[in-house]
C-alpha cells in the first residue's frame, strides 16, 4: 500500500501542529474516505423515531457514499449502500418516506428491506430471447450492507468488520451522556441543514474547541449562558477520539477575566428575556454539554435545546452540517415552547452558533496556498487528557487529531 508519508509530512511536534494541507489536499480526502469513513468508525445515521414503521426509510451519507437506512418487517434497522448492484444508480433519492421495497428506476431491479435482490426485470428474457444467463444468482447481487447498531434510539452504522461493538467504541463516559439525554422517549422538533465552504475537519475542530466558545460567540458570554469561569470541564473518551465539554451555569464566578474582551458588552440587555428562560431537567446541574463521537457526530445540550448533529463532507472544501432537534414525548406545552424558543440560539441563524459557519470559511481562505504552514494548538498543554474545572484548553482538539493521525497513518 502507498505510504501516506508520501502525501504529507506531519510536523515532529505531533498533535499541537496541524499542517494546513489536511484541509485542502484531494488525495488526503480520498484517503479519508477509505480510512475514516469506511474505516473502523461508527457513523450516526438516524433517530429510531424517524423510522417508526416497517418500510420507513431515510437516506443519508457516510463520507461520499450514499446510504439508505430502513426498518424491515422484523423491526430491525438495516443500512445499505444506496446504489443498484446492476449499473450503480442510486435506488432512492427522497430524503425519507415509506416503501415496501426499493426498485431502481433505471432497469427495475428490486430489493427488499434487507437489501436482498428479489427481482430482475426480463430475467428470463422476452419470448424466450435475451434474459440473464442461467447461472445468474439473485443472491449474489444484493445491496452492499453495513453493520448497524442501535443505542437508546440512535442508529449508527459502520462499513468495518473490525470496528469494536458500538458501546465499546464509545467507551463508558460517552455511553453515560447518551444514557443521560436519551433516558425517555423523544419527540422530533425538526431539522436544520447548513452547508459551509470549508473542509469538514474545520468544523470537527470547532465543535471540540471550548476555548473559542465564549470569545467568538459573544451572545453566550454577554448573557452569562456559558463562560469559562463557570464550573465545567472536558471529558475525553477513547484516547481523545470523543469528548464532552460541560458547564454548570449556577456556578458562575466571574472575577474580571473577561474585562476588555469583545465578548462582554456591559450594557447589552435583552428586551425580551423569555428567549433564555430555561428549566432544569436533571439533578446534575449541567446546563451545557457538547459531546462529539468520532468522527462526525455531535450530541448537544444547550440549556433545554437538545440536538444530534452530523457532518457530511462534500469534497475537500465543502461540508454540510445536519441538525435534528428534539424534545421528550412527555414534555408539557410550556416545556415544548421553551425548547423551540431556545432553538433561536442554535442552527444556521443561531444567536450563539451562527459564527461557527463563518470561522471555517475564514480559515479556508487564510490558509489557501500554504499547505506546509501549521496551526498552533497548545492551550491547556500539549497532551490529550480530561480536565476538571477548566475549559481554557484545546485538549479535545488535540484528541481529534490523535484519532485522525492513527487512522490515516500520518
Amino acid at each position: 500500500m502507498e505510504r501516506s508519508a508520501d502525501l504529507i509530512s506531519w510536523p515532529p511536534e505531533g498533535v499541537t501542529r496541524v499542517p494546513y494541507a489536511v484541509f485542502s489536499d484531494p488525495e488526503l480526502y480520498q484517503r479519508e474516505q477509505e480510512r475514516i469513513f469506511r474505516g473502523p468508525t461508527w457513523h450516526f445515521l438516524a433517530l429510531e423515531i424517524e423510522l417508526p414503521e416497517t418500510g420507513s426509510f431515510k437516506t443519508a451519507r457516510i463520507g461520499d457514499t450514499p446510504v439508505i437506512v430502513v426498518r424491515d418487517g422484523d423491526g430491525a434497522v438495516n443500512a445499505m449502500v444506496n446504489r443498484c448492484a446492476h449499473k450503480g444508480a442510486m435506488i432512492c433519492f427522497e430524503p425519507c418516506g415509506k416503501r415496501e421495497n426499493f426498485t431502481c428506476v433505471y432497469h427495475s431491479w428490486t430489493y427488499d428491506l434487507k437489501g436482498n435482490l428479489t427481482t430482475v426485470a426480463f430475467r428470463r428474457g422476452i419470448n424466450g430471447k435475451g434474459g440473464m444467463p442461467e447461472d445468474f444468482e439473485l443472491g449474489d447481487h444484493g445491496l452492499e450492507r453495513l453493520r448497524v447498531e442501535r443505542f437508546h434510539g440512535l442508529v449508527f452504522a459502520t462499513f468495518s468488520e473490525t470496528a469494536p461493538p458500538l458501546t465499546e467504541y464509545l467507551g463508558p463516559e460517552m455511553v453515560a451522556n447518551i444514557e443521560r439525554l436519551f433516558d425517555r422517549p423523544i419527540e422530533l422538533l425538526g431539522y436544520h441543514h447548513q452547508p459551509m465552504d470549508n473542509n469538514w475537519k474545520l468544523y470537527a475542530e470547532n465543535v471540540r474547541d471550548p476555548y473559542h466558545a465564549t470569545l467568538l460567540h459573544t451572545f453566550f458570554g454577554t448573557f452569562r449562558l456559558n463562560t469559562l469561569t463557570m464550573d465545567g470541564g472536558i471529558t475525553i473518551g477513547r484516547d481523545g477520539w470523543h469528548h464532552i465539554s460541560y458547564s454548570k451555569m449556577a456556578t458562575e464566578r466571574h472575577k474580571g477575566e473577561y474585562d476588555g474582551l469583545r465578548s462582554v458588552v456591559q450594557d447589552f440587555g435583552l428586551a425580551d428575556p423569555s428567549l433564555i428562560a430555561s428549566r432544569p431537567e436533571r439533578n446534575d446541574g449541567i446546563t451545557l454539554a457538547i459531546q462529539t463521537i468520532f468522527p462526525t457526530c455531535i450530541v448537544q445540550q444547550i440549556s433545554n435545546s437538545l440536538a444530534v448533529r452530523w457532518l457530511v463532507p462534500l469534497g475537500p472544501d465543502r461540508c454540510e452540517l445536519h441538525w435534528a432537534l428534539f424534545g421528550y414525548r412527555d414534555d408539557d406545552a410550556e416545556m415544548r415552547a421553551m425548547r423551540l424558543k431556545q432553538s433561536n440560539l442554535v442552527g444556521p441563524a443561531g444567536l450563539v452558533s451562527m459564527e461557527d459557519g463563518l470561522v471555517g470559511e475564514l480559515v479556508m481562505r487564510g490558509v489557501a496556498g500554504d499547505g506546509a504552514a501549521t496551526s498552533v494548538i497548545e492551550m491547556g498543554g500539549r497532551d490529550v487528557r480530561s480536565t476538571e474545572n477548566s475549559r481554557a484548553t484545546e485538549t479535545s482538539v488535540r484528541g481529534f487529531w490523535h484519532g485522525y493521525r492513527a487512522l490515516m497513518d500520518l
Partner: protein
Amino acid sequence: MATPLDDAALFRRIEDFLTRCIHCIDDDRLEEWPDFFTERCRYKIISRENHDRGLPLGVMECDSRGMLKDRIASLRRANVYEPHTYRHQISALQVEPLDGGAFACRSNYLVVRTMTGGAMSIFSTGRYLDRIVAEGDDLRFEERLVVFESRQVETLLVIPL
C-alpha cells in the same frame, strides 16, 4: 384562498405595507423593522421541509416585538458575520379578508445576497404567509411566517428575511 379582497385601494395599501417592509430590510434600516409588527406577534422562518412535515422547528422564531429588537441588537453588537446586504423581490400577492378586520396574505419572495467582496447569490426563496391587522393609521404584522423553499441555509442567516 377562499375570498379574494375586492377592494383595489385596500389591496394597494397592503401591497405598499409589504413593500415598505422589504425596503426597510434591504436599505439596512433594521432598527425600524420591528415596528412593522404588533407588540405581541409571531415572526418565524421555517424550512418547507419542516413546515410540510408538521415539524415546528424554525431557524428563527420570535413571539414579541422585543424579541425582534433583540435580534437586531444582537446582529449589530454581538454576532460576527461577513458583511452583506439583501435585495428582495416580492410577487404573487393574494389577500383574503378575515373576520375581525385582519387579512391573510400570501406572497412569494426571492432574496439575492451580495457580500461586500462582491459575490452574489440567490440566498433564499419561498413564501410569506402573513396575518396583517390595522393598528391606528397603519398596518402591522400580527404574524409573518417565512417558509423557505430549500431545506438548506448556506453558511448562516443573520439578517431577517
